[in-house]
């Protein structure tokens, strides 16, 4: 029971991560972990700030989607 609940949780996490990445928003937790480990001097943005920055960044480059 516990195990199936756990696998359900991890599949949900996978789905959320994939869905967000499809919209150009990478995993926030991974980013925070990266900042804490490699750039402890930088301020950690809130999810909302992180989201806005990524949203703007997605449509700056070229390509990104297909016909």
């Amino acid at each position, binding site marked *: 029971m516990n195990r199936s609940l756990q696998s359900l949780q991890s599949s949900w996490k*996978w789905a*959320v*991560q*994939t*869905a*967000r*990445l*499809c*919209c*150009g*928003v*990478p*995993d926030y937790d*991974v*980013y*925070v*972990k*990266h*900042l804490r*480990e*490699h750039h402890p001097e930088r301020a950690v943005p809130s*999810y*909302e700030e*992180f*989201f*806005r920055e*990524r*949203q*703007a*960044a*997605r*449509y*700056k*480059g*070229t*390509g*990104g*989607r*297909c*016909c």
Partner: protein
Amino acid sequence: MHTRAANPPSPAGKILWATIAIVGAFCLGVVALRRGEPINAIWLVAAAMAVFVIGYRFYGKFINNSVLQLDPSRATPAVLRNDGLDYVPTDKWVVFGHHFAAIAGAGPLVGPVLAAQMGYLPGTLWILFGVVFAGAVQDFMILGISLRRGGRSLGHMLREELGPKAGIVAMFGVLVLMMIVLAVLALVVVKALTHSPWGTFTVACTIPTALLMGVYMRWFRPGRILEVSIIGVLLLLGSIWLGARVAASPTWGPMFDFDAGTLAWLLIAYGSCASILPVWLLLAPRDYLSTFLKIGTIALLALAIFLAAPMLQLPAVTKFIDGTGPVFQGGLFPFLFITIACGAVSGWHSIIASGTTPKLLANEGSAQMVGYGGMLMEAFVAIMALVAAASLHPGVYFAMNSPGALIGTTVQQAATTISQWGFVVTPDQLIQTAKDIGEHSILSRAGGAPTLAVGMAQLLQGIMPGEGMMAFWYHYAILFEALFILTTVDAGTRVGRFMIQEIVGLIHKPLERTESWVSNLLATAICVSLWGYFLYQGAVDPLGGINTLWPLFGIANQMLAAIALMLATVVVVKLKRERYVLVPGIPALWLIICTLTAGWEKLSGPISFTGAARKYAQGMQDGKLLAPAKSVAEMQRIVTNNYVDMALTGLFMLLVVTMVVFALRAILKAWQINHPTTHEEPYVALSSMAS
């Protein structure tokens, strides 16, 4: 080189693969050889799955081990440059989902539907063999090559491997291709919405829905994509329901009833405004909706095909393989191979395979699954679109996809003409189909989307019967395609703007600045007028537009694929792995032959733009009106448009030839040197990066 111990296949494995091969060959045999009686779509789907699985396991693996020599012990750009934002080592299934969502678009749904005029067999065979030997090879090799170069873009790699001039030529080619893509996709929407108040109303509703979502996510619940997307989808489903009432209302209905020319202008106006608004307001929310609806709709289509298991009513091969088809002109070779671009091989994918994806892969060992496997999934979508079209009544299919100039504008004329072609259909059947889907007419709705929508609606009706359900599903499918295409138009106009600024910046430096309003507005105006011109030309074209623009799009898209495969060929030679040069070399050569032959036939001969322009110019000189033109102005327009299309075709051919010269030069040079000369980054062991 770090090689892995090859595992010898176990006896059970051998039996499994032999079984898959036999089942696949049997299904393919049924699809290819059974004549005279309709076959079930499941045969086709099963054959496709067997071919894909075998192609992945054997050819994909061969490319992985021998041609690209990918190495799971080698650190990827995501690991080397991990910044938590663009370069992030990510779970391979997440990358796969992201990659597939980025490559799957309207293309694989439209091309196979148009190609169905030749029967389902030619399209099926090209999709199956094209994807295994060309499309998936291109995606996978470009991904693998980019992985070894810090996740660089296609343009950047072309500059490095083929020289700076080749990079500029390719950039220019991509820009022109993009304008044609936007025009032809927008035209698909115009064709679907012409005189369809229900469709127009629901598609118009996506604008306020997206604005609402944008505002909600900006101020009320920032970053809650799932929540806001659910609200958006519910609003859209509500707008489909409301659309039926609007279309039936004598006051509201006519307000959403437009002809093709007006719709084209509306789309041009929309594209200009949308690409200037902040992205969070309109583009981003639209993007979320279209991404989720796209995945959901593809899943729904797969479910419908498996559950409904329709019979394929279209013949395996029709007489139109001789080039006299009403949907597009031109014979099987080369036109089948440029009509089905996305789904078999698509140049666009090389941009995505060298964009975000290589920056996310945590291990080189996952590249085959994402690059090769992702493209196989896309081919499967194309097969499903083909099934949806082929399971329609052939008479209905041709009524929907032939221009009015050929089949007339009344159901009686259309039924008579199409029956004469050998696809017996009665006017009542055409009227009944229109009534079932809640529209006034189904005639001459070329462009793939409406045909796919009718096919899908029939399949879904088959598994979920109910009063008025078919009309609902039809408009759902139209809404999904239009939503998706409008997102592309918006995003594409922005990307086109950046590219124009980059190109103009080569001539006049200050115009390159993307923060300058003057330069932005100027570049946006240039971009919108470029695709807008072709859209309007297609919308008012008495011959229907799609049969002019789609070949141009196909030639351009396959041209880009040829360029990407040439890059792969050059890299293989530069790595001194000449014995594998044919792996990317043969598909590159095939696409060069197809684009140049198709281009040539469009430049001179009976189906050429030049021929059409001359014919109408001669008619004007003689003071005659040639059908379908109804006035001298229309004659003049046909002449001008054909000359423009002719010039564009010539330009594409020149681009291909130039790139061939650059590639051959690079290949010859590399062949003579006896050591690798490519720009690969040095090996770093993954184990040394473990944190």
